[in-house]
């Protein structure tokens, strides 16, 4: 890096505290931000390629392997898409169990992000482990809640990373009433603990910053629930579409500096998915204590500061604990663990809210029950353009900072999006070019 503030370049070779491998290149020329590139060099793994020819029953297990941090999201979106293709509607108690499973993943993923990946930026430490030397109580409190999130995934899904119990039509088996009662006992104090965590996060120093003007916020919407398993897709720009319409409104393009595609709205402009977008569009559907706490902490649906995404994650964690407790307390073992499924030639789309935002799947199934074609759009590839444009905007307002401080705030700003590069890289449109 040079010391001339009007022209400088820095290259963060490898971003730390993100999932997967990426770097960042920033170029400033004559006092103007000339270029910002979020480099993604995670090697491609070609999931859409080898899913072809696999049985219709396999995508929940196979797509889970795209991401070790949010495997449940892949299982939920793939189940929804394939069940839609095959005309299957799961029983309400099984949907409740899926909702509970998803709560576990949100808790685990959000708490990992808050404590081990992002809080160190706000409090001035190189890592969560280093932060624990001075903030041991807070880190241990977080780890205990993270453990409970994993515990939920184990109780419903059978394993914390890459759960084994999810199948098309429901589950292989369902938890006993005794197991679920024990889980409810663990969840009762967890709601309070999650609220304390959110109050702690609210005390962090937040840089004054907003998303670039014109960024659309996009999230799922459900008639009554805060959307993990949403129904329609809505935006702050007035979009309101069904799942089959998604590909008419959104597209991905290949850029040279990334093995992950970039998401764009066909109507033009960047869009943001994830906690800030979900909260902006669904704050009215938060569980009661999460909703009250958001008000207490001054968080409103008008919030557009990406640095405050960590606070939204903390509020969403409270929500997930409340919903999980409610489902666990109401639980009686379902009449059957799964509904019967009969494969047929068909196609279907599905979408759910992964911890990092919208995760879309589309499958074509042939008459033998084998996968003929797959399309998957993960949250981080959708957020890549907005991350780059947000950084241009942020750097433009921060040129007075010295190089080290500027580099630090850029890395912190990337982490606002909790990017999952492992996810983003594995989704590539097989239909872009055919030679």
């Amino acid at each position, binding site marked *: 890096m040079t010391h001339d503030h009007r022209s400088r370049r820095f290259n963060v070779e*490898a*971003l*730390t*505290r993100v*999932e*997967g491998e990426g770097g960042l290149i920033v170029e400033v020329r004559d006092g103007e931000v000339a270029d910002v590139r979020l480099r993604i060099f*995670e*090697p*491609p*793994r*070609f999931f*859409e*390629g*080898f899913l072809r020819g*696999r*049985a219709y029953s396999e995508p929940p297990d*196979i797509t889970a*392997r*795209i*991401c*070790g*941090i949010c*495997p449940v999201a892949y299982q939920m979106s793939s189940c929804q898409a394939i069940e839609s293709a095959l005309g299957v509607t799961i029983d309400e108690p099984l949907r409740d169990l899926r909702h509970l499973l998803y709560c576990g993943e949100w808790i685990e993923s959000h708490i990992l992000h808050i404590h*081990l*990946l992002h809080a*160190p930026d706000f409090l001035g430490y*190189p*890592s*969560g*482990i*280093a932060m*624990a030397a001075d903030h*041991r109580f807070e*880190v241990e409190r977080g*780890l*205990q809640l*993270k*453990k409970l999130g*994993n515990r939920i995934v184990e109780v419903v899904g*059978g*394993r*914390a*990373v*890459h759960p*084994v*119990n999810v199948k098309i039509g429901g*589950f*292989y*088996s369902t938890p006993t009433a005794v197991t679920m009662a024990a889980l409810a006992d663990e969840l009762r104090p967890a709601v309070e603990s999650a609220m304390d965590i959110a109050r702690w996060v609210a005390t962090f120093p937040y840089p004054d910053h907003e998303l670039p003007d014109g960024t659309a916020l996009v999230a799922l919407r459900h008639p009554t629930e805060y959307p993990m398993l949403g129904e329609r897709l809505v935006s702050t720009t007035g979009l309101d579409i069904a799942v089959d319409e998604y590909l008419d409104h959104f597209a991905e393009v*290949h850029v*040279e500096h990334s*093995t992950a595609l970039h998401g764009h709205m066909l109507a033009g402009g960047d869009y943001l998915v994830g906690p800030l977008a979900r909260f902006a569009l669904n704050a009215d559907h938060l569980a009661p204590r999460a909703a009250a706490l958001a008000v207490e902490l001054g968080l409103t649906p008008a919030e557009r500061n990406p640095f405050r995404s960590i606070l939204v994650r903390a509020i969403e964690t409270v929500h997930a604990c409340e919903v999980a407790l409610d489902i666990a307390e109401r639980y009686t073992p379902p009449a059957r*663990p799964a509904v019967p499924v009969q494969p047929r030639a068909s196609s279907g789309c599905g979408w759910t809210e992964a911890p990092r935002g919208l995760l879309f799947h589309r499958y074509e199934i042939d008459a033998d029950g084998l996968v003929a074609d797959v399309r998957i759009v993960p949250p981080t590839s959708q957020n890549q353009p907005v991350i780059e444009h947000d950084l241009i905007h942020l750097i433009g307002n921060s040129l007075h900072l010295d190089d080290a401080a500027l580099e630090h705030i850029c890395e912190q700003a990337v982490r606002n999006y909790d990017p999952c590069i*492992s996810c983003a890289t594995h989704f*590539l*449109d097989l239909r*872009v*070019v*055919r*030679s």
Partner: protein
Amino acid sequence: MTGPTVAVWKFASCDGCQLTILDCEDELLAIAAALDFRMFLEAGPEEMLDHFDISLVEGSITTAHDAERIRDVRARSGIVVTIGACATAGGIQALRNTADVEEYTRVVYARPDWISTLATSTPIADHIKVDYELHGCPISKQELIGTITALLAGRRTPVTRHSVCVECKQAGTACLLVSEGTACLGPVTHAGCGALCPSIHRGCFGCFGPSESANVAGLRQVLHAGGIPDDDVLRSLRTFTVTKFDTGAHP
């Protein structure tokens, strides 16, 4: 900080096995106190030492650059432990090994000339000497903690070589294959998960790879005689550790 210096490296993978380190919630701060993590990008540390006492390696080799990088990791490491199905078997991305990767790249990317990838996904041990292997997709938390503890104490690591069947017997789980005719790869699959799938009434799908002396052909005959289509069995064997189960020539 005392204790051996440790690096965690990532190659082609989903991050799930290194996440298993962070998932040791009760033990994490104790592990961090006993080991001196200097390189662990996902958690923060990024100090490139000339020598690391222990390297934990996640992921498989899928690019020429990574084939170079793993040799560099070996050169600067005392003990190399590979963690998970990608590192020990090439992972699910090794399904490319029997496909035409040039064709994949051409149809997958608008600009194939921007993409650099090898035709194969290979285990770490195909490239360098590996001292210990932890199997599984993902690895078992207990085996990870057991191995770290054993390395610190200078004793043998606790990884067994028998099949999942032994773990079902230990857990008292009724045999799904014998009692219900469910397709189960347990008889040929490396133990370590605690026989998770049979415990939830699902046949094992082999995510820990083959056990020692696995009789895959024998199991295929038994399943075939039980009316399970061989295509389904082969597909299951050719999933998370496709390079490791001996399934004969690709049809």
